[in-house]
């Protein structure tokens, strides 16, 4: 038995990437919806277990090359961001999939195997992008994940609006892929190599070209992460997708892209030739996202759109933290990634569980669906950066890191974001608890597993907000690996 464990641990990164792919293939050929769903849940659960085990016990030398293949494109490179984010994203995916259980009884139950298959393909793509060490492999992984996500949104749509959402994602994906290609080409030309690990050691012949390349790559990922002002697709796509589709986009896809930006920043910012220029670009993008996302969330009238804008603001915080390029900055970025996942899951699964779209439908929700209300409230409080929530902790760590680096303006941007959070988060809480539904709202609560997902996310976020020591330790260890791996 222990030999199996040792074998699993030795090849954990490869297993983390391969298992969802195998699951996707099995789900695709599965004749029954329930079987496909079970395969999906087992794949996600298994991958999450391996990812947790690997993060806690299997942390090898930073930057160790492991692998599926010794061919450059598919060489796996393990680093702090992969160690921290892989368990997080797989757990998030597991909760989204569990929460989607009710969906299979929806209008197209026969499509379930395809939906689960696309879901696992999307997950595998983002996980592969987290573990691959070469730009070409990362490009392929990201685009696979994104194309799968588009298919998923189109397939799970409960009305024709989902097709429109998928179209917007297609446009964004297309533009993003072109930007990535241009950026990767510039990096290859400037550094002579697309291997992330070799970047810090390689001699950059044209620093400006490399900086421009990384900036283009990050812009491409920022498009997919829903970073403002590149997030015009996010509100309409999330608003038109099904509850399950919206949860998947917000809690897996956007998070995957945001985490990947942090990962790339970890390599780029420790390459002295390009660090300064790239840091400025990343910080500017982060600050813009924080401010624009916050302002847009104030005016949103659809809950999913509001989530999209609020999450853009949170993602901006992640980018700002990463732009600091310091140990404290990376640790703050990872804590905020956790806050991002928790808020995305709580809001999207909570809204799906209660069956609400428009913010006006939240009126009196506490009486109709107290558990979903609790999950949405926990997320709203976190978005408001209310003390003792994970959102507060994330912003506090960022502000601490920013002040340490003399970036007072970043601290100011965070305060503005928190202030906006009071208004849009407070609006949600007020409607849920202090208003009565004056008209019969045709909501279709999904119940069961969706409630469970939303509540697990809310409880995890609340518990870690109160006692964040394990999360802070994990973020610090990952940040040490990022700075160590790149040094």
């Amino acid at each position, binding site marked *: 038995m222990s030999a199996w464990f040792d074998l699993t641990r030795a090849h954990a990164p490869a297993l983390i990437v391969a298992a969802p792919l195998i699951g996707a293939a099995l789900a695709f050929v599965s004749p029954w919806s329930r079987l496909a769903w079970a395969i999906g849940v087992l794949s996600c659960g298994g991958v999450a277990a391996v990812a947790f085990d690997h993060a806690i016990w299997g942390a090898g030398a930073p930057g160790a090359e492991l692998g599926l293949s010794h061919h450059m494109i598919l060489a796996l490179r393990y680093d702090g961001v992969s160690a921290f984010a892989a368990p997080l994203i797989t757990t998030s995916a597991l909760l989204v999939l569990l929460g989607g259980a009710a969906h299979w009884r929806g209008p197209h139950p026969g499509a379930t195997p395809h939906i689960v298959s696309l879901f696992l393909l999307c997950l595998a793509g983002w996980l592969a992008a987290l573990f691959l060490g070469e730009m070409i492999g990362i490009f392929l992984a990201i685009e696979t994940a994104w194309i799968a996500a588009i298919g998923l949104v189109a397939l799970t749509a409960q009305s024709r609006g989902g097709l429109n959402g998928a179209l917007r994602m297609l446009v964004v994906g297309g533009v993003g892929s072109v930007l990535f290609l241009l950026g990767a080409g510039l990096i290859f030309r400037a550094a002579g190599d697309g291997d992330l690990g070799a970047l810090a050691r390689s001699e950059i012949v044209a620093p400006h070209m490399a900086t421009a390349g990384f900036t283009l790559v990050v812009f491409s990922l920022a498009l997919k992460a829903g970073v403002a002002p590149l997030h015009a697709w996010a509100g309409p796509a999330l608003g038109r997708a099904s509850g399950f589709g919206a949860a998947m986009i917000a809690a897996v896809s956007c998070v995957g892209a945001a985490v990947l930006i942090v990962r790339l920043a970890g390599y780029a910012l420790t390459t002295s030739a390009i660090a300064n220029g790239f840091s400025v670009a990343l910080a500017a993008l982060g600050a813009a996202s924080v401010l624009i996302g916050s302002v847009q969330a104030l005016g949103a009238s659809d809950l999913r759109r509001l989530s999209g804008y609020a999450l853009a603001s949170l993602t901006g915080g992640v980018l700002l933290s990463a732009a600091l390029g310091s140990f404290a900055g990376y640790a703050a970025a990872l804590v905020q990634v956790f806050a991002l996942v928790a808020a995305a899951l709580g809001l999207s699964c909570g809204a799906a569980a209660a069956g609400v779209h428009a913010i006006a439908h939240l009126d009196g929700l506490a009486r109709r669906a107290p558990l979903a209300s609790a999950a949405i409230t926990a997320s709203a409080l976190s978005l408001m950066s209310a003390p*003792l929530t994970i959102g507060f902790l994330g912003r506090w760590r960022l502000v601490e890191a920013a002040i340490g680096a003399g970036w007072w303006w970043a601290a100011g941007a965070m305060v503005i974001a928190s202030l906006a959070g009071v208004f849009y988060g407070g609006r949600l809480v007020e409607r849920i608890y202090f208003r009565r539904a004056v008209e019969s709202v045709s909501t279709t609560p999904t119940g069961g597993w969706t409630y469970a997902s939303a509540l697990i996310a809310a409880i995890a976020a609340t518990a870690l907000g*109160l*006692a964040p020591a394990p999360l802070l330790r994990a973020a610090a260890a990952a940040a040490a690996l990022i700075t160590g791996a790149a040094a």
Partner: protein
Amino acid sequence: MNAELLMLGLISAPVVQALAAVALARAPAARDGAYILGALVAATCAVLLIGAARAGTPVRVSLAQPLPDVDLAFALEPFGALMAVVISGLGLLHAVQTTGLLRATDDAAPGRLLACMALAQAGALSIALSANLFTLFVAYQGLALAAFPLVAHGGGVEARQAARAFLATLLGAAIALFLPAMIWTYAVAGALDFRAGGILAGHVDVFGANVLLTLFAFGSAMTALPPLHRWLPASSHAPYPALASIQSVAVLPAGCIGFVKIAAFVFGPVLIDAGFAARALIALAGAGMCLAALIALSRQDIRERLAYSCMAQSLAVVMGALLALPVGLFAAALQVVALSCAATTLILAAGTVSVVAARQDVRDYAGLGRAMPWTFASFAIASASMIGMPPFAGAWAKLWLITAAAAPSPYGGGGLIWAAVLASLAAVLTFAHLAPLAANALAAQAPTDPFKRPDGASIALVAPVVLSAAATLGLLVLADPLVAFLSPMWTPP
């Protein structure tokens, strides 16, 4: 009993009260009994804690450590212990009167009202006992969130708008001003734990001290320092039990307590470095006091008049705390006690009058004292205290405040005589808007139809008013011992 347990009991009793109020919402007798019992437990714990505070025993309870070097903790020090006694003692009287009011009125959601009042009290007690700035900030936000439904309790568009203004002002100021100030303090001092002599001592230059003081002063919008005072008059149309929570038992006093703690334990002697901002804020508070008292004079609705009157009293606390003198801090501490006792008496009395005589307009109060002698005698005593007439609590507070203002100022240039003049002028204006009202109620001819209710006021409606009025006499005997008791506030160990 173990002091730590007493402190936990004191903080958790109102939380249990809130849970009981919700759980027993459909059994009024059990609900009210549990509510009063909870208030009694809290008051007992607070009184017992005074002994530990007097002995100087270090008592600290840490609930969580949400940030690496900062915990959510409560600590016992004399000022906090005194305030806990005041809040929980008045809370007990308020609880008794609230049950009486609920019996006499037809509230749509009494369980929610009681629960939010109890949670607001827990927030106020947490502020009083907070061990560091972070806990103060958390309790401040918790208190604002708990009090928000109290403002909205009346229902309707106006109440909801008032509640929104309430929450937006208090939370907005906390996040936009208090939070950056807290982060700045943490960045320069590396700690947030309160200590006599100030966290900032030796860590901040003149510019930083001035900016920080300004941020903290406006960030603590619960003190109703203009221009962030709109929440107070906006909330004046809440139901009477909620009104007492907001203006006299929980929110407004908690804002004052928090500000005094910041002045004493975050700044201490650093206030002298922040002389420019401090003098400007003293002038603002002084002018605000006079203006609030003047506006109160123009209001005919008793709730609005009391809201502005309470605002004037609260600004006196701010003025005292900013004088950068031990005497000023002592005056501020006494003023919080005086404000709480007198304002509670006035609001409870107005609540009783509203239920029993169905009168809100001060012009209709004429002669009611003849029909309700106990209530209006208490009203008159509390008015005298608010004005600053001896021998009531407000007199000692005002005396010390004016003395502190006139004393040689550490900011240089002799005493701040103009501040003393402003405080005196505010007292005169308070006299103008409260004294004729009380006198007219007691002296004028009794109205022919004084009571809406044929049986008049029940004991639950009158006894708390009388007892809280009696409390305003407490400082007559306690003022001197309090100097020694509170001295650790301004004496670093």
